[in-house]
């Protein structure tokens, strides 16, 4: 049901907006052109910031420094009670979206898409964002250099959310398991 909504969403939005504008007697064509001119400007504006973050993440990942980092941090994450298999995902997710997707595929491949870990990896991937990319892109586009509390707050929220997700999904999964066994 919900995946249907997200498929029809774009045509639906365009349709409503155009019809509404037409009924209101707006010069819809000129309005579109006027707005669309901004697209080029915005894309060119963000290009240097994209290059900067892509290269930094690329070097950090490609040199396998990221793997080392995960290895170094794993005693801490183990101490916090995170499932061992999920740790690389938790650490890569804020830095690299494609990297995280690779880890999710690994976990789903190894444990199966309907296993506890497979589901958990999918949920975690789907309920988080590539924090470093988003923050550099958006602040970069308007030349903000002092991020204030933004990054700290985003990372803290991310960590809290992971624990809530693992905890709640643990309950849901066990409940399902019990139900199916009765």
């Amino acid at each position, binding site marked *: 049901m919900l995946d249907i909504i997200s498929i029809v969403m774009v045509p639906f939005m365009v349709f409503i907006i155009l019809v509404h504008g037409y009924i209101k007697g707006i010069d819809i064509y000129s309005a579109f052109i006027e707005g669309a001119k901004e697209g080029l400007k915005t*894309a060119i504006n963000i290009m240097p910031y994209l290059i900067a973050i892509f290269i930094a993440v690329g070097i950090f990942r490609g040199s*396998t420094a990221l793997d080392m980092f995960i290895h170094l941090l794993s005693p801490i994450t183990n101490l916090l009670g995170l499932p061992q298999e999920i740790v690389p995902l938790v650490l890569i997710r804020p830095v690299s979206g494609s990297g995280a997707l690779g880890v999710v595929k690994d976990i789903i491949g190894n444990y199966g*898409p309907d296993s506890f870990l497979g589901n958990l990896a999918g949920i975690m991937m789907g309920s988080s964002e590539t924090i470093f990319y988003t*923050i550099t892109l958006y602040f970069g586009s*308007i030349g903000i250099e002092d991020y204030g509390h933004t990054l700290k707050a985003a990372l803290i929220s991310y960590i809290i959310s992971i624990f*809530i997700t693992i905890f709640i999904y643990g309950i849901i999964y066990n409940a399902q398991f019990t139900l199916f066994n009765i």
Partner: protein
Amino acid sequence: MKGVFFMINIIWFFMIFIGIIYGALTGNLGELNNIILKEAQEGVTFAISLIGIMSFWLGIMNIAQCSGLIKSICNIFRPMMKMIFPDIPKGHPAENWILMNFIANMFGVGNGATAFGLKAMEELDTLSPNNKKATNAMSMFLIINMSSLQLVPLTIIKIRQDYGSINPTSIIGPTILATGLSTLVAIIVGKIFERGN
């Protein structure tokens, strides 16, 4: 609090610094040359690939702006917006773009969301007295954005399908729950930091 100031400087520096040193130690330097070339190109390709879809969405949204549709939608959400973003004056265009960004994010119109988000930042910048420093409203907007808002994780569903899941879409419910909670946590954490400032 030097570490808080210009955090991106430090992070960016250390990612590259550690990457190159570690690459040298592990004999991966040759690989790094390829990565720099590839990623620089990737940045350009990605920005250019955004032009078309961003122009499209900004054009469509300009129609909705002129026809007053955005204003009507924003009126519905105004009380909520007032609570989360108390610093944005009533009826300021930043409000519209923030809402459009949230809605586009929720329904997975990824690049459309980016276009609206960048416009939102631009408008929030006009409200900022110091244009190098993030305002509370900017921080809150990004913190919510980075908590993920997307309702249907299409990529994950696709992967589950590829790996032969019995019910690929069964992940939607738990994901929406997790996304909702993470956004709630983000708003609370953001508010705590605001109060501390």
